[in-house]
């Protein structure tokens, strides 16, 4: 992406001294309060996750007897056992490619629709379509399980990852379209007019102008939908029976049944699921920021 040297310089001049070298000077700066507030919020937010990470090194008995204490020793074997029992090697891959494909379908289908609704000149039809998608947002999902299962059976898509991809993509469409429409609406008309004067058609406008400018929103939608698909359990259980096809949440559910929960292995399995996604998120959110800078420079 194009990084603007001017912007970078400006950022640098605003950041000021590093807190550890001169804390008092730092505290008196304008941004001290936001930092303090955010750090307090993060402590509360992250502590449960830190606890989860610590628990993944404890034994089951240590967790039930002293849940907030430290482990007597680092029980790495939890990870080995969880890896094996939750079949992480197979299920992780399944989950990963299902989630990525689902998100690509959502982005392709959703951005086209959002573009038509937000930018093309069919106000009446667009309002109707928008409201139609709203229906999908307000319908309680649980009641759809049985009709959906039967539909997938009739389509002979049971035990086929395609069923999950299509269902998850469809269920994510309303939210996706809402978000993308909101972002696309906020693009100034002048940008569009200039492009059309330059000779771009609607399709050209979509691919060359709107998509790049909404990149931060697209990445955001990608992340959100990726996580939803990544964690989806009930559809995966309903539509897939074959062991080799299962997804990671199904694998993780083996540590928790109606009668017992194996907390230490569950915690280790959660780490397998959470850490990679966190790393991916860390880099993607940078992309959002870069995209925003790039987009606004162009605009």
């Amino acid at each position: 992406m194009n990084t603007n040297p001017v912007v970078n310089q400006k950022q640098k001049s605003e950041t000021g001294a590093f807190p550890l070298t001169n804390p008092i000077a730092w505290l008196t700066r304008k941004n001290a309060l936001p930092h303090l507030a955010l750090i307090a919020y993060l402590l509360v937010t992250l502590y449960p996750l830190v606890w989860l990470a610590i628990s993944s090194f404890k034994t089951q008995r240590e967790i039930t007897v002293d849940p907030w204490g430290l482990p007597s020793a680092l029980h790495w074997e939890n990870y080995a056992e969880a890896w094996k029992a939750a079949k992480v090697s197979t299920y992780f891959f399944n989950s990963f490619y299902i989630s990525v494909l689902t998100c690509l379908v959502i982005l392709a289908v959703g951005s086209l629709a959002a573009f038509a609704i937000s930018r093309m000149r069919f106000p009446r039809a667009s309002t109707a379509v928008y409201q139609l998608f709203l229906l999908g947002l307000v319908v309680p999902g649980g009641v759809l399980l049985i009709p959906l299962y039967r539909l997938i059976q009739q389509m002979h898509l049971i035990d086929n990852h395609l069923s999950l991809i299509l269902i998850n993509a469809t269920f994510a469409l309303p939210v996706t379209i809402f978000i993308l429409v909101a972002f696309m609406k906020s693009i100034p008309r002048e940008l569009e007019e200039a492009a059309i004067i330059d000779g771009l058609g609607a399709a050209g406008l979509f691919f060359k102008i709107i998509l790049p400018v909404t990149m931060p929103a697209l990445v955001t939608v990608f992340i959100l939908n990726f996580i939803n698909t990544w964690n989806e359990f009930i559809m995966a259980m309903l539509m897939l029976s074959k062991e080799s096809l299962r997804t990671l949440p199904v694998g993780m559910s083996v540590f928790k049944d109606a009668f017992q929960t194996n907390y230490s292995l569950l915690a280790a399995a959660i780490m397998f699921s959470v850490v990679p996604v966190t790393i991916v998120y860390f880099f993607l959110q940078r992309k959002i920021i870069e995209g925003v800078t790039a987009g606004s420079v162009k605009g």
Partner: protein
Amino acid sequence: MGPLKNIALSAALLSLAVLSGCGSAATTTENSTTDGAKEVTLSLRHTQIKETTKTRLKILEDVVKQTETNNPGLKIELEGVDENVNRNQKLKAEMAAGNPPEIFEMFGGSDTQLYVKAGRLLDLTEFLETSGLKDQFVNLEEFTVDGKIYGLPFGGYAEGVFYNKKLFQELGIEVPKTWDEFVQAAEKLKAAGKVPLALAAKDAWVNGMLFNSIWERHVGINGIEGLVNGSTKWTDPNMVKAFEDYAVLVNNGYFTNGALGLPYSEQGAQFLKGDTGMVFTGSWDANRFTTDEAGALKGNIGFFRFPSIAGGAGDQTSINAGYSNGFGFSNNVSPEQKEKIYAFIKEFYSEEVQKRTLLEDKVLPSMKLSDLSGVDPLIAEVIQTINGSTSAYKAFDAIVQPSVNTALGNSLQELIGKVKTPQDVAEKMQKEQEKANKSNK
């Protein structure tokens, strides 16, 4: 619905053609017959996908392998599904559509009755009689509808009190035989700063277990059964007494503090921590109580039948025991498949497999076993307790309507939360019962 669906379906297939770049195309699962032995495929749906059910799955897999070896051309495909998803949605939808797997795990009682009513289950009566298998089962009642047998339990359970032998010894408590002794024991435990009864009842069914036993002591199994046809009422004096006794345990503070916010798994954990005297639960927990999680308590846990209640109308030395976890079989099968289903049954329901299940999985056998050697002492104690009981009765949730079951769960929670009196609760239950009886749901 019909035409709309067809149009939509063809549209769906159209868009599938576009998208089918990802994922394999749908495969047809028709059985192909080649030369030689006739090929038969059976799907077997189980729910043993949890870490705690590994042993049970292994046994099932071994039986399946053995059945395949003994029946050339037979292929049994195992598919594991989460228990709740299978019971609430998957199997139900298949039952409605008439295409369940050939063999599936199924609960006795209301589920079995429902599937029989829908006409989906294979009637096993004749096969079980001619093969002589029928007499080898302890009890097939929950899988029997109108005198015909539609399913076979692979194990049983009994409910009673597990207790911490160490604590009982330290405090000089004898195993209670009567309600009064039970209350005294609890009082002693409480005085010593221990929790008398572990309870974790975020899920309403957990409360139902202990109440079921108090209830039966007071009204007898006929009294419970009578509710459904209206011959007995929740507001009858002895019914109210059952609620009152339950309230005694609550008001004396014998249960775990904050029990209504704790998940069931917490109950066993509390008991195993060692500062809890007793826990009322089912024999399925015995497996957990004999693992390393028990720590110092391992080998120091005992089991006794719920004590008798003087003046009650029930059988005072009976025990709540049932055989409701089992297999059902689809009647939508070819003659060859049916034959192989029978072959599987013979293989799975054998004394050898049952004994192995008892030893390794610690599930009470559903068939009469002559040899009980090598059994874990705690499990042996449970079996002895059952054998020493004058009768066994099934759990109330296999008798009353599901909506009444939910209502009872709530009522007991209300007693525990001390927001309703036993009398109030009884009246509310009677209302719910009448509503359920009327609509016959």
